[in-house]
């Protein structure tokens, strides 16, 4: 399959903060690729470079074979972007917003109008089409913003955290919509800090941290990279955490991950349910009270923890396995 987004060695600095630190990226035509990383990993910056919004300090990128730096105007004709916050005009109605975007894509008046109505129907906004956007709910605004990215039926779509801040129901709805887009042949690069989102949508996942790609593969490949199963135990009393570390340490085949605040310790294991029974017995005999225990396949969060020592969803470091010498993260 043809490669449609290609970037090598992207570097972008904001003063002291390095937002992109030599990012490489490749997306094949007709696939969904997720950029997964915590806040400040450089996801938005990467999308901004690829959509011509900012120029990188170093590196090169092409979209559909067109150089993003030397010919941004051509690139803009081929892309649709939906940003982190809804980039729609609050005072305009849903219809007026999409109509305006269509005109600015130079579809022509008539085509812009019919396309706007069509998208409003498809995104379940037809009833609200002629109401100012400021009366919309958060989920409706997001849907409208996403519709804005689709007005010109652009072959390459960029969705920057399309579901951040949405409740679970709206998020599921949006996932369904996003998937139908790619069924129609578009290529999609999406950024997310939700592991479940990458899991549900993406063919390929690029895990990025501190402006660099640290892992790349399908969701299953990434999970296999970490391997095995996990036992996660939540203790009732914080004082029991050292004991939990000790017990699980004996059963673990790799490094433990602990989180003091949630009073949880996670251990990679190889013995499945038999191991679990043994662990429970050990907790019992040490009189350590447990409020929750799970045996599960690794999640992307485990992948992320294993790779960086930090949790992807919270963007916070977990004390025990943290590597020394971490740099501070910027807002981008």
């Amino acid at each position, binding site marked *: 399959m043809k490669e449609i987004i290609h970037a090598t060695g992207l570097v972008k600095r904001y003063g002291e903060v390095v937002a992109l630190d030599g990012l490489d990226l490749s997306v094949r035509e007709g696939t969904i690729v997720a950029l997964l990383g915590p806040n400040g990993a450089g996801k938005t910056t990467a999308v901004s470079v690829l*959509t*011509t*919004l*900012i*120029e990188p300090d170093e590196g090169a990128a092409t979209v559909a074979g067109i150089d993003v730096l030397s010919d941004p*105007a051509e690139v*803009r*004709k081929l*892309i649709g*972007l939906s*940003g982190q*916050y*809804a*980039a*729609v*005009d*609050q*005072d*305009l109605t849903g219809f*007026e917003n999409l109509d*305006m*975007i269509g*005109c*600015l*894509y*130079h579809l022509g008046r008539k085509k812009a109008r019919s396309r706007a109505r069509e998208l409003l129907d498809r995104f379940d906004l037809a009833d609200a089409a002629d109401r*100012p956007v400021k009366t919309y709910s958060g989920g409706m605004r997001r849907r409208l913003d996403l519709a*804005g990215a689709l007005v010109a039926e652009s072959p390459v779509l960029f969705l920057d955290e399309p579901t951040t801040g949405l409740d679970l129901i709206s998020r599921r709805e949006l996932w369904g919509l996003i998937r139908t887009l790619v069924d129609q042949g578009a290529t999609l690069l999406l950024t997310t800090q939700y592991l479940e989102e990458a899991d549900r949508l993406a063919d390929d996942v690029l895990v990025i941290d501190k402006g660099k790609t640290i892992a790349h593969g399908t969701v299953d490949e990434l999970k296999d990279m970490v391997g095995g199963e996990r036992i996660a135990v939540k203790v009732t009393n914080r004082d029991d955490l050292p004991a939990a570390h000790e017990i699980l340490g004996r059963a673990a085949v790799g490094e433990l991950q602990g989180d003091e605040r949630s009073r949880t310790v996670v251990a990679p294991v190889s013995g499945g349910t038999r191991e679990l029974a043994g662990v429970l017995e050990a907790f019992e005999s040490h009189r350590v009270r447990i409020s929750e225990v799970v045996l599960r396949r690794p999640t992307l969060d485990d992948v992320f923890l294993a790779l960086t020592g930090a949790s992807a969803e919270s963007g916070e470091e977990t004390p025990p396995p943290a590597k020394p010498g971490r740099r501070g993260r910027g807002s981008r």
Partner: protein
Amino acid sequence: MNFLSALGDGLVIARRNLIKLKRVPDVLVFVLLSPIMFVLLFAYVFGSAIDIPGGSYREFLMAGIFGQTVVFGATFTGAGLAEDMQKGIIDRFRSLPMSRAAVVFGRTASDVVYNIITLTVMATAGLIVGWRVRGSLLDALAGFLLLLLFAYSVSWIMALLGLSVPSPEVLNNASFIVIFPMTFIANTFVPAESLPSVLRVFAEWNPISSLVQAVRELFGNIPPGAPEPASWPLQNPVVYTVFWACLIIAVFAPLAVRRYVRVAKKS
């Protein structure tokens, strides 16, 4: 990007701005009330105190208020742009294959429509308090066109300012400091000849004076006994005003567009 498609994109943005004006009419109402208030204040409070030899102060005054109002109205351009730059919609615009000049051009264009509305309301208020056009209708029309042209040029200055300030509030305060003296040290409310020497020279070469002088002449509102102006700009007010308007547009339009591109890139 050719000129025609830039024009088309600008008109799309202008249409959007006008829809917004219609939808949030409080701004328009507020901005319209202040010139009406000015007409009434000057006509009834100062009207009896300020004496114009051989003529009516109210008639003398109207051109001044027209001039001052359209110049003040240009602040609207800058504030609108400053506000736009804070909104998420700008990100959308930047990712679209539209002309880079469209946002600024569209804003100045929609403000022409806005000025037409303002001038209509003010002219009506003026007619009610006794102002009349004494010259030909064609001349009066030329007077309104000159007001619109000059206002359009000041819009571009304000556009540049609006793109250079951190927030719309800053723009309102900053422009006030410049526009107030510019419109008062002029022949807007009193004849330039009556000002003390330094101010008088400033007033005579101030393009707002020549604008007001030209409009006064075109409306036929120069008092019959008024002395012939001593300075060249006020003797040839139409030429001098058009010259300034073109000069301002030629300098500030490219600066404002360039500024927009730079600001848009940074955020």
